[in-house]
């Protein structure tokens, strides 16, 4: 099996990366664990959404909408499960499914390896993730939730800043070509 192969669309050549076995599962579990543990020890880091960053990264890298949305669904449902009884199963699941699908779709069309592209896409996906969350809360849970505020804007920026080195770190999990 090739570690890397190319999608040919016209003159565009986009690589589809493969990862070491267990890399995706390990990264996901680690992200969820840190997501659950970090706010306990470092409350100021509660703005971080590591599962979202994992979803975005593997979506952009795998570049397969089906696997991207399934990965987003899995990560979202696990996050729901770890969020306690006040969060119904499916709240983060829906949001991360949408993010996983779009990230894979965009990753299949654009080169997302550049740090600036990763930063921008992370901000955009964070906002989208937040929008889907608010929409779900308002429509299904009848919970009034602000669409966006300064705290969320800063969280988007901080997550995007963190995403750039994190994605570089995760790049090491790729099988070399």
């Amino acid at each position: 099996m090739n570690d890397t192969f190319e999608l040919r669309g016209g003159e565009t050549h986009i690589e589809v990366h493969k990862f070491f076995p267990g890399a995706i599962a390990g990264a996901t579990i680690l992200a969820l664990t840190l997501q659950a543990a970090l706010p306990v020890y470092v409350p100021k880091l509660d703005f971080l959404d590591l599962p979202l960053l994992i979803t975005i990264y593997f979506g952009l890298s795998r570049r397969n909408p089906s696997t991207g949305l399934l990965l987003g669904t899995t990560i979202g449902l696990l996050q729901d499960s770890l969020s306690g009884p006040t969060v119904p199963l499916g709240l983060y699941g829906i949001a991360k499914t949408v993010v996983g699908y779009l990230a894979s779709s965009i990753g299949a069309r654009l080169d997302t390896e550049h740090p600036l592209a990763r930063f921008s896409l992370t901000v955009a996906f964070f906002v989208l993730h937040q929008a889907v969350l608010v929409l779900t809360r308002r429509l299904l849970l009848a919970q009034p939730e602000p669409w966006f505020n300064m705290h969320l804007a800063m969280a988007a920026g901080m997550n995007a800043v963190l995403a750039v080195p994190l994605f570089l770190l995760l790049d090491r999990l790729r099988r070399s070509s």
Partner: protein
Amino acid sequence: MVAIPSRHKSVALLAGVLLVQVMMLAVQIKRDSRGRLIRVWAVTAVTPFERTGAWGFGRVRAVWHHYFALRGTARENEALRIENDSLKLAISQLQSKAAEADRLGLLLHFKAINEKTTMVGARVIGASAGTASRTIEIDRGERDGVRRNQAVITPDGAVGKVIEVYRDSAQVLLLTDKDSGVGAMLVDSRIQSPVGGTGELMLTMKYVAAEDTVNVGEKIVTSGMDKIFPRDVPVGTVAEVKQSTPFKQVRVAPAAKLDRLEEVFVLLTQEPLEFQKEGEAASSAPAAPAGDSATAPQASPAAVKP
């Protein structure tokens, strides 16, 4: 089987996964007043169809009942018509009994305010066979103490006198008979003159001098001069006065309802009687409510017999 193009597979998968999660949320979310969201959605989705179905079923049933199932309706209609006739008859009988109870109530009241006067109540059981005379037949006779030339009255006024007495019945000559007469006087002017019948409903005061003043509406009572009626029994009211020579023609409307007699009193003595004024009659007469009259026992005039 139609294959889904590969580029649409991921979209279909996305829609499916999202739908599953939305349904999962709906199962978990519980609205305070309306239960779980999935139940709210299910009811909301099904209600229009249920409503449409109920409306359609109602229309079909209405059409069936109003157009096709009329066979039983004709029978039911006939039964209702018969029942309606029966109820009409029952109502008529009850109204008659109520009216009778009212009349008997008045008689009892009249009897009560004249308890010292010896009188016997009687029911009218017949009338004269022809138009040549104005008589009635009552169900009291010799055995009840009724004798010829005794006065017959109602609480409204004079009726006539007994002309024939049998063992259990008697014949009464009404004031309206041509041969009838009663000693009377005008209440205001105290002019005395006999009042007699004309063969019609109206009476006439026979011998009022042309120079005497008689006003329409003036009351006429018995004078007691005929030795049949006691004094002051109402006879009637002056209805019309025509100037004539040598006597006025005075037409009198009888006080008693001589054309609608059903119960009367036969006065066994000539002791004076007390009659109610017109204004008092309505207020002091014992009321006989319609509801009560329907269930009241059938009082007989014999009940007022002394």
